[in-house]
């Protein structure tokens, strides 16, 4: 297939520009062009959420979006969430509360949870369970994922209060 398009993306604060076929999936562009392999592929139908990233301030599943649709967008992937010396609160909380096992769903979980906590800073357990329902996990049974997110919420809220 020919007819490549010029694509511009800002990912984790860095500008990228490349030629891509219009049919190329966003997740493949992230993983294979930009070597950001934290976003995974699990179902190709938008159900499992292991490819979840933030695009222009919204959670999207990068396996069901063409990179052409993302042209000009600003994205955050799990690689932009924290650094080894300065982990994001959610990254700490998932480890602290055993919110992961095989790790395959974890980047997507963390990306979605971060957005959820922006949308609802002080969620109930029910709101967390509903808000995370687009992200599947086969290992944990979600109980400790929910616990991790609730703990992160409370830590982020305390930090906010302290800052005020």
């Amino acid at each position: 297939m020919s007819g490549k398009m010029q694509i511009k993306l800002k990912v984790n604060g860095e500008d990228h520009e490349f030629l891509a076929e219009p049919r190329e999936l966003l997740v493949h562009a992230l993983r294979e062009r930009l070597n950001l392999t934290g976003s995974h592929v699990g179902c190709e139908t938008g159900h499992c959420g292991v490819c979840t990233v933030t695009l222009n301030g919204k959670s999207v599943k990068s396996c069901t979006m063409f990179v052409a649709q993302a042209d000009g967008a600003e994205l955050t992937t799990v690689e932009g969430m924290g650094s080894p010396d300065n982990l994001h609160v959610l990254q700490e909380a998932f480890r602290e509360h055993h919110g992961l096992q095989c790790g395959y769903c974890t980047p997507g979980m963390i990306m979605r949870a971060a957005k959820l906590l922006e949308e609802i800073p002080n969620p109930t357990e029910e709101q967390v369970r509903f808000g995370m329902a687009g992200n599947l996990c086969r290992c944990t049974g979600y109980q400790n994922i929910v616990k991790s997110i609730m703990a992160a919420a409370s830590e982020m809220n305390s930090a906010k209060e302290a800052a005020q």
Partner: protein
Amino acid sequence: MNDMTPDRNERQANLKGLGSSRKRVEDLRFTQGKGNYVDDIKLEGMLHGDFVRSPYAHARIKSINTDAAMALDGVLAVLTAKDLEPLGLHWMPTLAGDKQMVLADGKVLFQGQEVAYVVAKDRYIAADGAELVEVEYEELPVLVDPFEALKSDVVLREDLDPKADGAHGPRKHHNHIFTWEVGEKEATEQVLDSSDVVAEEMVYYHRTHPCPLETCGCVASMDKVNGKLTLYGTFQAPHAIRTVVSLISGLEEHNIRVISPDIGGGFGNKVGAYPGYVCSVVASIVTGLPVKWVEDRMENLMTTAFARDYWMKGKISATKEGKITGLWCHTTADHGGFDACADPTKFPAGFMNICTGSYDIPTAYLAVDGVYTNKAPGGVAYRCSFRVTEAAYFIERMIEVLAIELNMDAAELRRINFIKQDQFPYTSALGWEYDSGDYHTAWDKALVAVGYDDLRKEQAQRVEDFKAGKTRKLLGIGLTHFTEIVGAGPVKNCDILGLGMFDSCEIRIHPTGSAIARLGTISQGQGHATTFAQILASEIGLPADSITIEEGDTDTAPYGLGTYGSRSTPVAGAATAMAGRKIRAKAQMIAAYMLEVHDDDVEFDVDRFVVKGAPERFKTMKEIAFAAYNQAIPGIEPGLEAVSYYDPPNMTYPFGAYICVMEIDVDTGEHEIRQFYALDDCGTRINPMIIEGQVHGGLTEALAIAMGQEIAYDNMGNVKTGTLMDFFLPTAWETPNYTTDHTTTPSPHHPIGAKGVGESPNVGGVPAFSNAVHDAFRAFGLRQVHMPHDHWRIWKTANDLGLHG
């Protein structure tokens, strides 16, 4: 004078050994998106493979035309059976002693079967190439029902001589694979004939799939300069894969390096060898370039290793007081087009003969008939030991049916039939020696915890209210007491492809008192890097934080049979402890030399060797480690290393008591899990946090299986549940919170008394959920209805019972 601080308790805590809820060392890379899964691997010049798959479940292949595909820019090769035949690779051996087509050789036997393999410069071009391969099929009659298959004139496996024995003895019919019998047939039939009460039922455990979020895949990289093949893959048994690759490719085993990187869940799906691996290896050898193959979700669900699909006809007999006298089971096992079950060689139906469960049943008989049909091959243990979930579901359903027949409370019926604590080690009627158990204690603890008597009262009231038109919701109390059999297994009776099912650990202590240990297993989320270091910390007195655990590279790790069937802790965990003890034995001699006393005059104490009776005179393991590398000790070699290959003397038998309280809406078929209590006894507990996580996860997989998940076929052999749109995986929204609990009955033969836990919750969870559904309708005459209990089926059950007015 040695400093006596920190005190003994602090020293113990510093180790983070057995019993510590140590945080996982794996998590730092996973939470930062820095895991390294197979699809993350990128090698110079890497090509991509994709399959042309059969749209038909049974068809003859008239022709394959690859011209158009080959003409596509970027396609380098298209492999068909014809290309593999000269290499002898168009068929491959299965784990069950059968053989399987790598690429369709004249016909196809299931929908999605591999027909041709396209190799191209990127995954998009490979997929385009696959579209361009023209295959002409002639449809053949399709057999999707194993009972029909055994009567049909249609021959599925034309390559097999119907008169010749199969891998497991005589075949009765051209679509029959094996008969496996255990126990005493005549004696059991006599007991059934002469007992007060006999309950009979057909219990079907439907076909489903492990469906890990990461699908199966590999990267094969043949280095033609050095003659070495490196094969990265989602392998639950990397060493066994290396041996299989060597046997079928003719490459010498030392020239093959198999690497299992991080694995995104396995649950049994990644035990087997698949055509994608063989084709990728061939393509890499042919092109001299690395070749990646990663299945998509549809390919995963439709073609790689399904689980279950057992039709279990049962009879259970008892005295009128409820004492069980005999158990009879005949299972018809649907294995699909090839027998690719992953079971130890001598067990064609796995450990299905654990089907006497937790009960003291004096006489029993089990027969299993394996059958070919037009479905995908597989038959793996989906988060269970070999066929143990099937066995547990069978006995836990039969107990419930017997309770109905006797008009007894099902909890009480279990209690009066449990194997008693003083009967262990207990030899079951079907030949297993249960190592240890205390079922009554666990059961009573569970019943008290949920308030069982009050629940029954509430349920009785609910039935009255329902009958009086005051409610449309019923209450089900799902009981299960399961006994697992894991840790395969003793080499004397357990092997896969002739490889004994031992496992291994090799330890190197570094001069500064840290260590690396390598094992023959491979974690897929179980947290081995965390827990095996804890076992070692307690054995050798170095902090778990100072011990690196490495698995999955066959060039560096000692040979082992891998991770499945909850065997890592029972077998490799034992090897770890034993290797640790060898380290300790040498450390004792070094310590005695340093302290200038006889070897027998020092004793191990947490993290040091101490002169007996003189606690102020000691050498820490850290000091001993350094001495091992810098002192010339007469009669002792320098260094501090050990390796252990552990052949377990017996299996381990974890058990548990699970209770599920479920509300069912009779008019919509929807359910709500009000409470789920799970008591597990996995012997010695290494890391309670990880155990709890394993239980949550296994229960959620059980919830999926019992309440909606299935691989369903239509009469044409079309897979109806080939994507996550229709294959049920519960979300956080449907999944309840679980209450976990435990008792601790160590295994008497395991070095640290651990039994394994990863699969217990799936084994015990499925009958607990299913029994809750059945129990809700018991008062209205329901005896048995097949899983999965999705909303429609529950609605239909209510409708069939006349509850919709």
